[in-house]
């Protein structure tokens, strides 16, 4: 009889709350939209890229918002540069053994690629016409360097979308450390949410109808994949499934994330005219909301019940 079960309460929660939830969500969408837009850019026709290029508008602003969220989450925000520079020695601060250090750099690098593509999007939408910029943007997106730039950009995006999951795995809270599927879950959720936003951003023009169709299908694939990954994730948590699967977080997960965020949009994809014109819009919004609450549950669930939460 050991009523003093010190073990379960001994670990501490880092008490990462809304700033981190929003950062994960925003970073997911930034990466997801960038990857989708880049794939469309590489595979799609000139007409299609007309639509997909709007995806690039998301990258830069969301990265900036993400960076801002990260800084205000710190207890000493004024020292955020310590993430990149080790002042006591005046050398760059780079530490492969911690995802947070790499994540910081990844955010920076991806921000650069997102900026290029953001510029390209403005060029394509004739918002920017200064020749040198136009030439530069086109070179990077249509010219010989397109493949290299977009591939590298996508790698940075992929890392940005998954490192947050790896960071959660590289900890001791049972709910986070038990299953290695969190990065995949965040990635897929980011992709589907990103695509959903791009769907919302695409104006009703018939020449984009082709592109819209592809986007819708990609989004459907992502939702299906996310469903699979989510279920396997909860199963792979083993005895710690309850941290996300039961109680308040459980209801949010099964009802909002899976139900509203995945199954309903899936049904809408299957019967596009369920709500007539507005089905696409509604399903995308639901996906986005589902994406947010997925992060809410996966971040707060495993922390609840520990000191400092």
């Amino acid at each position, binding site marked *: 009889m050991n009523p003093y079960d010190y073990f379960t309460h001994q670990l501490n929660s880092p008490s990462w709350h809304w700033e981190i939830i929003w950062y994960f969500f925003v970073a997911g969408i930034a990466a997801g939209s960038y990857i989708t837009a880049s794939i469309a850019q590489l595979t799609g026709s000139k007409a299609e890229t007309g639509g997909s290029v709007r995806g690039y508008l998301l990258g830069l602003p969301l990265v900036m918002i993400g960076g801002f969220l990260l800084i205000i989450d710190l207890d000493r925000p004024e020292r955020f540069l310590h993430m990149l520079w*080790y002042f*006591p*020695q005046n050398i760059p601060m780079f*530490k*492969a*053994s911690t995802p947070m250090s790499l994540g910081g750099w990844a955010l920076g690098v991806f921000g650069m690629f997102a900026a290029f593509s953001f510029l390209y999007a403005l060029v394509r939408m004739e918002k920017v016409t200064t020749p040198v910029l136009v030439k530069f943007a086109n070179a990077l997106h249509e010219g010989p360097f397109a493949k290299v730039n977009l591939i590298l950009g996508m790698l940075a995006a992929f890392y940005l979308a998954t490192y947050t999951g790896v960071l959660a795995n590289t900890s001791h809270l049972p709910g986070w450390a038990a299953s290695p599927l969190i990065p995949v879950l965040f990635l897929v959720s980011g992709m589907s949410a990103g695509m959903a936003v791009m769907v919302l951003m695409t104006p009703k023009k018939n020449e984009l109808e082709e592109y819209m169709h592809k986007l819708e299908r990609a989004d459907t694939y992502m939702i299906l994949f996310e469903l699979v990954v989510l279920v396997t994730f909860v199963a792979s948590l083993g005895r710690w499934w309850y941290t996300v699967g039961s109680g308040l977080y459980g209801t949010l997960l099964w009802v909002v994330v899976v139900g509203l965020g995945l199954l309903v949009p899936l049904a809408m994809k299957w019967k596009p005219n369920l709500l007539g014109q507005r089905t696409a819009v509604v399903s995308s919004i639901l996906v986005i909301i589902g994406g947010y609450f997925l992060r809410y549950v996966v971040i707060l669930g495993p922390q609840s019940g520990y000191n400092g939460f």
Partner: protein
Amino acid sequence: MAISRREFLKRTGVAAAGLTVASIGGLDVKPVQARVNSIKLNAKKGKQYPSVCPYCAIGCGMIITSDEQTGKVINIEGNPDSPVNLGSLCPKGAAAFQLVENPHRQTKVMYRAPGAKEWQAKPLDWAMEQVAKRVKETRDKYFVETYEGKKVNMNPAIASLGGATMENEWNYIWLKLMRNLGVVNLENQARI
């Protein structure tokens, strides 16, 4: 073997910026000069006074360090040279610093008039004179020279409680003063 406890008295107080090899994961950087913030000990360097713990009767030896400029006590810990406790203390002894430096500690003489609802602050000298006057009044009024035919010279109207937490020197001059005022109601915690 263990760093000897007697080191304590030879406080060098040199704030060495330690030279460390910090293992920065991945990138092995040249020895990192551990920039240590202002070492607390400096703040605690001061004049040391051997003392004895005021709590239980084991009589643990203590070293009180007080700051030379401000005259304030800045640290109290066990005296490694005392054979009673070899530098160790119990939780009460270790917290003795807060017996000295504590915002809840009273620093003003307070007076409560009969029937009053609140304290009033009063100067120390005034209070001392009042107490002396009260003692004389009460003693003179209720003094008993003889009782049941025997010479007793006692003063039943004044009582005193307390003593086990104060020094021998106080106990001695207090009992000397009280006895010579005729007080018989004189007690301390040895009974409780």
